[in-house]
């Protein structure tokens, strides 16, 4: 008989409750995702636009204060209207809004790439290695499993969209040295955070649904690329055809001496941008930020004859925001239905 049995020992520690059990899945998913060098590199790249945003906001703060520090680089700021350079404070909200708009637009694109790296493996590998019985024979529900996997996407996208947006905001505040900036710009911060949440949940549910459709993560990656590139390309082609048609109609109307059609109303009824997944995301983001309104104010500084052209260049889709919300909501419901069908608890597993 051994003096000390080094075999099995009982354990008398405390187990946590059920409410946060999904967090274990998220933590594990993050550990696995961050073990990949490519993912870490992609995360680093995705944070770079935030550095640029922080730099722009800091420079704007110095410009508002007319700091000596910025005098040296004033010649490089010729792209700004002289009226803005002369009195920057009235344009504070617009410049911040447009800066955040560019940042979020870039991050939307990078988020799609980041999801391409981490998303396909999330469920497809569990299906491939038959891991679901290991999950569901433990005190976990299907909702815990999906929440845990979704948490991986939300955490990673949050770290490249929401966290940098907040950090850049804090830096911008620090450099402005003006308490009223909080009142002016807090809406931008809230809109950025809300947009980060929308993109994380929408794209997260979508990639999870795609990931649950195949045991091969390469196929899932192809599905995702299709969802992203193909829908954008199709939307682009449809819009090009539409523009061609409208130009043709305008020429015909002018030739026939008819009244020109209402371009604004036509733009608001145009459903073609809705075909692109990322265009819908961007449209919601722009509406949250109020980017078009900010551009309109800056465009008014330009000569009248160039304003229309500028509008065409900088203003986004004119369809109502709730159309894009409806498209994304439908995609989310569809994703949840797929997940409900594909993530089976043990009563439906073989």
């Amino acid at each position: 008989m051994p003096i000390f049995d080094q075999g099995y020992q009982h354990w008398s520690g405390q187990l946590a409750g059920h409410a946060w059990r999904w967090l274990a899945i998220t933590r594990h998913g993050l550990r696995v995702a961050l073990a990949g060098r490519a993912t870490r590199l992609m995360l680093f790249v995705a944070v770079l636009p935030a550095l640029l945003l922080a730099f722009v906001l800091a420079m704007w703060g110095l410009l508002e204060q007319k700091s000596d520090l910025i005098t040296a680089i004033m010649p490089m700021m010729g792209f700004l209207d002289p009226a803005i350079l002369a009195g920057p404070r009235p344009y504070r909200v617009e410049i911040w809004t447009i800066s955040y708009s560019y940042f979020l637009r870039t991050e939307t694109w990078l988020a799609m790439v980041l999801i391409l790296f981490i998303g396909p493996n999330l469920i497809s590998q569990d299906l491939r290695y038959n891991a679901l019985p290991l999950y569901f024979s433990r005190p976990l529900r299907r909702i815990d499993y999906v929440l845990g996997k979704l948490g991986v996407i939300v955490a990673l996208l949050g770290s490249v969209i929401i966290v940098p947006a907040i950090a850049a905001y804090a830096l911008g505040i620090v450099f402005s040295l003006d308490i009223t900036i909080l009142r002016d710009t807090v809406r931008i911060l809230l809109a950025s955070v809300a947009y980060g949440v929308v993109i994380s949940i929408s794209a997260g549910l979508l990639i999870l649904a795609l990931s649950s459709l195949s045991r091969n993560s390469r196929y899932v990656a192809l599905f995702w690329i299709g969802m992203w590139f193909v829908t954008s390309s199709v939307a682009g082609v449809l819009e090009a055809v539409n523009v061609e048609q409208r130009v043709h109609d305008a020429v015909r109307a002018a030739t026939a001496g008819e009244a020109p059609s209402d371009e604004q109303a036509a733009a608001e009824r145009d459903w073609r941008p809705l075909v692109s997944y990322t265009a819908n995301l961007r449209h919601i983001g722009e509406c949250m930020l109020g980017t078009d309104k900010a551009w309109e104010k800056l465009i008014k500084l330009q000569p009248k004859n160039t304003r229309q052209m500028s509008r065409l260049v900088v203003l986004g889709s004119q369809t109502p925001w709730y159309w894009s919300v409806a498209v994304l909501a439908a995609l989310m419901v569809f994703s949840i239905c797929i997940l409900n069908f594909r993530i089976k608890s043990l009563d439906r597993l073989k």
Partner: protein
Amino acid sequence: MLFQLEDVTKTYGPVTALNQLSVAVPTGAIGLLGPNGSGKTTMIRALLGLIALESGSGSVLGMDIGRRQLDIRRDVGFAPEDECLFPHVVGIGFVAYAGELVGMRRTDALQRAHEVLDYVGLGEARYRKVESYSTGMKQRLKLASAIVHDPKLLVLDEPTNGMDPAGRQEVLDLTRDLAHNKGMSVLFSSHLLPDVEFVCDYVIVLGAGRLLAEGKIQELKQVHYQSFEVRLKADMGPFARRLAAVGCSVAEREDVLVVGIPDGQSPRLLWEAAAGEGEQIRYLRPQRSTLEEVFLDAVNNTGERG
């Protein structure tokens, strides 16, 4: 009471997997026997609260299977039959993750994972990717992940499937040790009767979703006082014929004769027959049913009733 089911019925379309099953099982090492499709796995899933039952009720460790499924799964360790892995992790990460899913803190789970991996003999392989493990190592890994949180009840579904003899014996030794020396109740489902007999004290036999037999193995393997196993020094043929002539039933099994003596007669008949043939009896003992016989009797009786 370890668990009990009362009038439990579960159907999958036209197939009745559990048919008004009622069973009450004490703590200890429990063997779950039954032919393919007898409802073993469905019964395990019912006990873990993983399936909705058409009718009936039950409890595991005193917890209702209809209302406290998550609590049951917290107190039970389960190693499924199929090959299943958390992908892209090393052994230690696998077991620690299993602990975290039950609610252990990360540091506790890691410490405990080291202990149980040592216990199941995977200490040297703890930093290897689990995808590279052999079948036997994967079975032991599943066992380690099932006991990482020190469950009160360990449920093993066909734990020795596809294993070589040495690996199979290791898993059986570990399970027996847990059940008999560590105070953990075990529900051991298997087709392999020797495995069940090695590990368990109590057995449940299922067939067509019904309970065919249950009880302590030693009691089920009853002694037959009118039937004996006999081996002689020399040829057993004349001895067998002499016994048959006086009304005994005689059957040859391997190197022994199984002799059933008529009612009212005593084993003295055997000695007299041996003396009459001038033979020496080298081995004589009352016949005891094997677990295989118990199982086959239970299954066949159901077949006849059906």
